[in-house]
């Protein structure tokens, strides 16, 4: 596994985590796209060293040498499609929240708010 890939996965993950801790959904969406890329890169990296395109040569599969592992690539493609769809859904959600409230902030947890108000009353 190459150091460059590991660094890329680490960098994307930390930037992604930083972004999804934000309050506004548009930042969270950016964070999730970075995290999604990190996860897909990790999947690709898990397939071992890079190599030739995984197409069986004319001489037969037994002769194939130095080809890349195709299975993680197939898994990555599925994951990319899913994260693409979900990003769109999140964008739609953010747009709806904006028409309803004027911003796209994630709301407080209901229990947290109740505990906060209860604490305010007693003091």
């Amino acid at each position, binding site marked *: 596994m190459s150091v460059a890939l590991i660094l890329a996965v680490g960098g994307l993950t930390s930037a992604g985590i930083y972004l999804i801790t934000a309050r506004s959904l548009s930042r969270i969406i950016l964070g999730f796209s970075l995290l999604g890329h990190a996860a897909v890169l990790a999947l690709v990296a898990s397939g071992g060293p890079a190599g030739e395109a995984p197409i069986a040569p004319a001489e037969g599969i037994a002769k194939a040498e130095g080809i890349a592992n195709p299975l993680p690539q197939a898994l990555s493609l599925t994951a990319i499609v899913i994260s693409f769809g*979900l990003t769109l859904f*999140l964008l739609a*959600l953010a747009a709806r929240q904006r028409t309803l409230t004027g911003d796209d902030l994630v709301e407080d947890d209901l229990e947290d708010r109740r505990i906060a108000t209860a604490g305010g009353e007693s003091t």
Partner: protein
Amino acid sequence: MNALVAITIVGPIIGATLGLIARDHPRRRDLATLLGLAAATLSAFAILVNVANNGTSVIRAGGWGPELGIVLVADLFAALVLPVAVTIIFVVELFAIGQRRTAWGANPELAGPLLGVLTSGVALAMLTGDLFTLFVAFELILVSSYVLLTHQGQKAQIGSGMTYVVMNLFSSTLFLFGLAFVYAATGTVNMALLAERIPELSNGVRIGIGAWFFVVFGTKAAVFPLFSWLPDSYPTAPTTITAVFAGLLTKIGIYAMIRFHTLMGMDELGSVMLILAGVTMIVGALGALAQSDVKRILSFHIISQIGYMLMGLGLFSVAGTTGAILFLVHHMPVKTVLFLVGGLIENDRGTSRLERSGGLASRRPLIAALFAVPALSLAGVPPFSGFVAKFAVVSAGIEAANTPIVIAALVGGVLTLLSMTKIWLAVFWGKPDDELAEAAPGNRPLMLSATALAVAGTLLISLFAGTLFDLSNRAAVDLRSDTAYIAEVTS
């Protein structure tokens, strides 16, 4: 057998597609969705009979081997849980069709077909034999649940829907990372091959993978401390949607956990699981006591009950796993029924808040009876199904001589009974508030009969408790000694 498995997975999604095409014709739409679900229900029961008699059967999609292709495995565990899950969705869809004739409830053009998509995801998640297909099945379930939760676009739903989506999306991303780790460590995502290769890994990597997937599945299952998204989001959806979510979604997380962690032999995680199970039971039950809305009380109960299933799994013994499976089979219908009754109360009174309903026992004795049976069952009062399930889990705890978790389980049971009493006192006794009754649309016969059907189903579980216990026990033995599973898949 191939055909049965195919119908269970693909039937509901075909029905859903036809339902979406015919969305402007209510009758045809409902018929298409119902037929898809009915086909899946019937074939799920046929799979159970087949697997109980002939043992595990393996379906290789496209004839590929376990190294490369997708393998579907119908073992006794899957075959036992699957019919219960699919039947629940069928009954809820009946209830929803009844509710559509009133002004309330989910938007019929979307909700019915999406329930079909969700059913396909549930069937795939239970039958799949590899971890990546499990991820895809989870996404199928979650995507339809995102839409079901937010499709009406009301403020509360969008607000809590955002928490729900972000939370689940994060755990899905963790799932993907976990897949990358597993593939890097073992070179496969097939569960049978993993069950062979993971025990050969060094302890650190093995337990790391186990803990990682415990967090992934634990978030879906709302295990303490990862539960806070659940009581905020579930009650905001229309009743029928909440009923399905409550009965199924968290349980898929527990199902995946039982399958993964027993198959991979993660016994070292047992003590962590037991501690979290105990805390989950107590915190969930205490949370329920503090609430003043029927749907929110019931949502906290989901969390509490997850603790019992986790306890059964965390004991890592045949008796414990048997208890967890039995609890799963009992909990799914009972929880769904309670939410359906919550919907009946809401439709009758115009609200599910405790202080504004009351006196239903004298005015609507049928609703009171429909509530009492599953409520007592959930609290674990004999002779209802909850007693059998709780007894199995607790006796496994006693067998393992683990006193703290047994005490936590019993305390949790008492607290559950207390909060059920709270609902009973406020909603069914007390003074009726006639002002509100005017605005409510009332209940249709189809809604009442669908709920009654589901209550009868939960009674059947306690009636056939012996058979179910034997089947759960066989399923647990198969899960604990995974040689048969591995041999079936790899041969």
